[in-house]
């Protein structure tokens, strides 16, 4: 069973994605802040990380940077899932090594699930 680490501070989204991805037979590990997310990425070695950007304790940009600097976690694909769409955000995130940048407001739930499945093939 493939493992997905979901770093997202909105518990409503943790529940929605948790339920839907478990139904799709994935194991979900939840982190509600950047610091916990980094710790779990190292200890749990997920197959994919779903990362929000506006996070408590450590901002998503910093989390992504640290994930990609660490030998143990740099190979894990990261999908950034956020509503932050400032000028230069997409380039910054892709430059830091994220696989995909998804703006929540622009995708339906099924589309996001499809992108996750595709990244795990």
């Amino acid at each position, binding site marked *: 069973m493939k493992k997905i680490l979901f770093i997202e501070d909105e518990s409503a989204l943790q529940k929605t994605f948790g339920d839907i991805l478990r139904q799709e037979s994935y194991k979900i590990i939840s982190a509600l802040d950047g610091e916990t997310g980094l710790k779990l990425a190292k200890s749990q070695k997920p197959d994919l990380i779903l990362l929000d950007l506006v996070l408590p304790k450590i901002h998503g940009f910093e989390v992504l940077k640290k994930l990609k600097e660490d030998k143990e976690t740099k190979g894990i694909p990261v999908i950034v899932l956020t509503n*932050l769409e400032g000028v230069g955000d997409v380039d910054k995130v892709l430059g830091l090594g994220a696989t995909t940048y998804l703006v929540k*407001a622009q995708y339906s739930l099924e589309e996001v699930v499809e992108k996750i499945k595709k990244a795990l093939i």
Partner: protein
Amino acid sequence: MGLIIIGSTLGVYLIGNRYVQDPQVMALITLLVTAILFIIAFIVTRSFERLVEASRMKSEFISVVSHQLRSPLSNLRWVIELLMSGRFGKIEEKQTEYFKILKENNARMEELVSDLLTVSRIETAALPLKKKEISLEELIKELISEFEPFAKASNVEIEFKSESNLPKIFADPFQIRLVIENLLDNAVRYIKDKGKVEIKLGKKGESLYLEIKDNGVGIPKEDQKYIFQKFFRSENVMRYQTQGSGLGLFIAKAIVEKSGGKTRFKSEEGKGSTFWFTLPIK
């Protein structure tokens, strides 16, 4: 600013020397003028700094607010989609009807937040244009098929004619899509009962032009000069359709201009409107 102060001080000294004999009085006048100029320069510089700071804060404020508004709206939309998908139990027909109402209203709010964000980016000159080669013809066909259900439900037929062998253009597909979406949405939305939208794409010199013609309610003559203003909605339009933010045409015109093109229209109340815009090929 420094050069102006030095120049003005020297000017005062040279001109003053002709008329004032006493060197002490002359020195006093020069000092006084220099001091006044310094005070003016200080006030102007501070005002500019404040303006730049206000503009930066406004941009940051809009970005944070839009993020804070968007997040609960996308959470809500995804939960509604999840419930409607039937993944966690079958939904009755009556319940689906109400879920649809929730979804539509949520979509309206998401659209408004997105429009406000685009307007703020246009106004703070922070609207990024990621240009690449695109086929306008393909983009229009894609959009027409997306609009088909809405047009059908509104009893509107969409017809598209394009000149053959048109070149691709160099523009931001996401932004151009927004322009056509806004114009096409207006064309379909403001047709009363039943009608037709005709879209024409062609080449004129070094530009491509796109025309969207409808036989809808039209724009009264006295309102025509205001239609590209933010939040403006014509009174006759409000009679038929109360929804809409009044930001679509402002956004469309700004994006076309930023892409190097022009937007024009002609309209007659009760007969319909024709909007067209050009976009440079390169």
